[in-house]
């Protein structure tokens, strides 16, 4: 390019794209008319950048952050619900045995009359009632820890954010 020739519109575009040749760049550095023509296009672009960002910052500021609480992958949610279901099953097996410390004849008779027992009787007669309660509490706390460790946000499971997750609210068994 002849250094006395002014830049074409395409070359000014290339400058704005960051793709101007070294020779044309050298011309631009020393040519006020070309710099003015560049500014005529560059200035509206700069204004657009500033005004559109002011617009989006203002709009973004009105949006709550917590809407973006991450959703757990499906397999993780399945795991959590699976673990919860397993915990419920274990509790369903263990709790009835607390109310039936030994498989007495009466209990067996009741079981025979009662419709469809939900779980087999577990042999816990040799464990004291207090010890069994302590073990159950330990188990529930372990389940809580597991659930808390695997769920970073209650909102991820679609639970209310204010009310804490169910895992947090689960109290230890008293009796």
């Amino acid at each position: 390019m002849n250094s006395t020739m002014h830049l074409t519109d395409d070359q000014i575009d290339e400058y704005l794209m960051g793709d101007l040749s070294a020779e044309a760049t050298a011309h631009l550095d020393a040519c006020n008319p070309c710099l003015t023509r560049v500014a005529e296009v560059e200035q509206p672009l700069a204004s657009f950048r500033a005004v559109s960002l002011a617009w989006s910052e203002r709009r973004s500021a009105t949006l709550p952050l917590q809407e973006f609480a991450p959703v757990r992958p499906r397999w993780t949610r399945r795991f959590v619900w699976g673990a919860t279901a397993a915990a419920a099953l274990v509790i369903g097996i263990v709790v009835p045995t607390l109310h039936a410390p030994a498989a007495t004849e009466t209990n067996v008779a009741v079981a025979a009359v009662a419709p469809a027992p939900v779980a087999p009787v577990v042999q816990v007669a040799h464990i004291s009632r207090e010890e069994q309660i302590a073990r159950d509490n330990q188990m529930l706390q372990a389940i809580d820890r597991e659930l808390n460790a695997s769920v970073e946000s209650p909102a991820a499971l679609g639970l209310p954010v204010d009310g804490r997750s169910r895992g947090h609210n689960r109290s230890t068994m008293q009796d």
Partner: protein
Amino acid sequence: MQLALDATLDAKMTNVQAPARSGSELDDIDALVRNYRPRLLRFVAFSIGDPDLAESITQDCFLKAWNGRANFRGDCSVNTWLTGIALNLVRDQQRLQKFRFWRQARATAIDVTDAATFLASGESSPEARILAREQAEQVTAALETLSPNQRTIFLMRFAEDMNLAEIAEAIHMPINTVKTHLHRALKAVRAYAAAAGAAR
């Protein structure tokens, strides 16, 4: 079929080369949203012309980014990476609503008229802010005349400050095609600026 294509596009944006994460920036979703939402919202809003829909797409973008953060390889800026994810979502939207862009979205169109008043007042005079508003309106009007690809490429270059190679990679086009689109976009901007200058 469409889902498969989308998954491929997402994979291209998120599953590329060996993960070499540049830090824990992506692990803090609140900070990520705070730092990048305005720019992403701008990119999406000015790409599709509907600010309400743009908010929803921007939210989806952060969810996708969060779920795919382990695949961020760190060879581009987080903003470029997020813009690439947003681009795929914008394209999905364009496929769904092929002919409902800009003109049809006017009911909820972006209004930059008062946005200039939110520019930092300490940095410019009231006259400069009025001029900035007028110029931004000219560029916005020019954007309306562009094709979706031209508009997207224009925004990537002049709003997101991506270079030609980054744009070409994100939009899966040769650099020369990107340049052609930018030439056309700048021609439109130049024409609107000239028309506004003649009207004064």
